[in-house]
């Protein structure tokens, strides 16, 4: 606490919003740019332009959070009742310092940064979201990952009294997700605590959630209460519900079709009724950063 940074700046020092937005876009575009630069293709500016974030309304009223109902508007309607303070995350399994980590305690240890990521749902719609958060690797370092650990399992809060959607067995609650350790440690993988520079609204997974931008949205588990390091692949909710349709990896991949939706293209929300579909990018546009994680793997088998 003693080393907390104190603000000496005045409103006059605030970066003009246009500059600020532009800078954020370029930073977020870095991923795609790195890949494109490698191929000597598009200038960075063009890449940055495609990453104009969606509106606050898009991001906060169009959510899949089945604990509050299966309608896209249900979470915004019903998640208000969720108590997110106090909050703690149990970190256990193959770690040196297992225990309950209080949310404020975690915030005190982490450095928050803002990142604009593409967000691609398995249902073939997408958004661009400005997240605030920290790298998952930093949180895992806090607990000390042991050498035998190969996977990270996550669990969402299960509190029926505040989650009307859990009255129905839409999924086998609590919601569970998982990553391979190298995916979890990847610098793009973050734990988000906010969007648009504000605290996460409940419907977006308050107070902290996973964000894995190269995977379908359901991998980015919300309102995390437990993180377990294991040596075997953990069960994950959608895979448990329908293994034929939802694999453990669930990387965004236009070449691997889903039984329900072609994944070759997507509808970027925010364009209104007559917006054109756009091509889906492999690994959601983060191929240059993450493709190496899957070297030698048959991605249509490990979908």
């Amino acid at each position, binding site marked *: 606490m003693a080393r907390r940074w104190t603000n000496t700046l005045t409103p006059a020092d605030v970066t003009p919003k246009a500059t600020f937005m532009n800078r954020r876009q370029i930073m977020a575009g870095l991923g795609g740019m790195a890949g494109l630069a490698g191929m000597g293709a598009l200038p960075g500016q063009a890449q940055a332009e495609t990453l104009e974030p969606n509106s606050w*309304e898009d991001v906060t009223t169009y959510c899949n959070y089945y604990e509050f109902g299966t309608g896209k508007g249900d979470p915004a309607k019903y998640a208000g009742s969720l108590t997110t303070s106090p909050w703690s995350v149990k970190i256990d399994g193959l770690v040196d310092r297992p225990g309950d980590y209080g949310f404020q305690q975690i915030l005190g240890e982490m450095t928050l940064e803002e990142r604009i990521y593409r967000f691609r749902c398995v249902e073939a719609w997408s958004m661009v979201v400005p997240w605030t958060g920290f790298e998952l690797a930093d949180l895992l370092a806090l607990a000390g990952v042991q050498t035998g650990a190969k996977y990270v399992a996550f669990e969402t809060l299960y509190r029926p009294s505040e989650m009307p959607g859990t009255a129905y067995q839409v999924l086998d609650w609590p919601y569970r997700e998982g990553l391979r350790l190298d995916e979890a440690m990847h610098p793009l993988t973050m734990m988000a605590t906010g969007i648009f520079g504000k605290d996460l609204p409940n419907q977006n997974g308050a107070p902290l959630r996973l964000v894995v931008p190269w995977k379908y949205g359901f991998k980015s588990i919300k309102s995390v209460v437990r993180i377990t390091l294991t040596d075997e692949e953990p069960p994950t909710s959608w895979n448990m519900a329908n293994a034929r349709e939802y694999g453990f990896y669930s990387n965004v991949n236009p070449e691997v079709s889903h039984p329900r939706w072609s994944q070759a293209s997507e*509808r970027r929300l925010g364009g209104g009724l*007559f917006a054109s579909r756009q091509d889906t990018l492999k690994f959601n546009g983060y191929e240059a950063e993450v493709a190496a994680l899957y070297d030698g793997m048959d991605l249509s088998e490990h979908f």
Partner: protein
Amino acid sequence: MIDFVNQTLRRFPVWGIYLLGGIYPTWLLYNGVTGGLGPDPVKALEHAMGERALQLMILGLAVTPLRRLLRVNLMKFRRAIGVVTFSYVVLHLLVWLVLDVQIVSQILADIAKRPYITIGMAAFILMLPLALTSNNWSVRRLGRRWKQIHLLAYPAVLLGGLHYVMLVKGFQIEPLIYLTVILALLCTRLSFAPKRAAV
């Protein structure tokens, strides 16, 4: 009570069904264009038209049991209900083709590869002869065969219900309720059949 309902129904003109049936999608489209349907107006429109079509199919299917069991007479509206149902199915399909999937190759692949879409298309095709023969001339011209053709409504509504059950993710109650109601209404046909044969 039933008499009062029937008298009120008798005074309601059939064109009122067509008018209401036309106002609703117009209102939805207006909202879709002006931002009143939320972040994903395409899906909102697509789902609204599909769900209304299913509800109207169920209403159409309920006309006969309502008359036989409760003596409520909706007979004069039945054709209008059917025609509005079909036009909603067409709108549902059009939204999916033009605003949602857009790409012809992907549309064809979806119809062939995704069972819930194949089934939805089959339901639409079964409804085509019904829509085409929903006029006085066809009724006169086809005579007894008209009734036989219109039995296609039964498999069509069943496929419509299945389409909904299959398209949702996870275990969801609402589409199962629709399917149960459809099955119950279809079962009432089984019990009417011998009665009709006796007459």
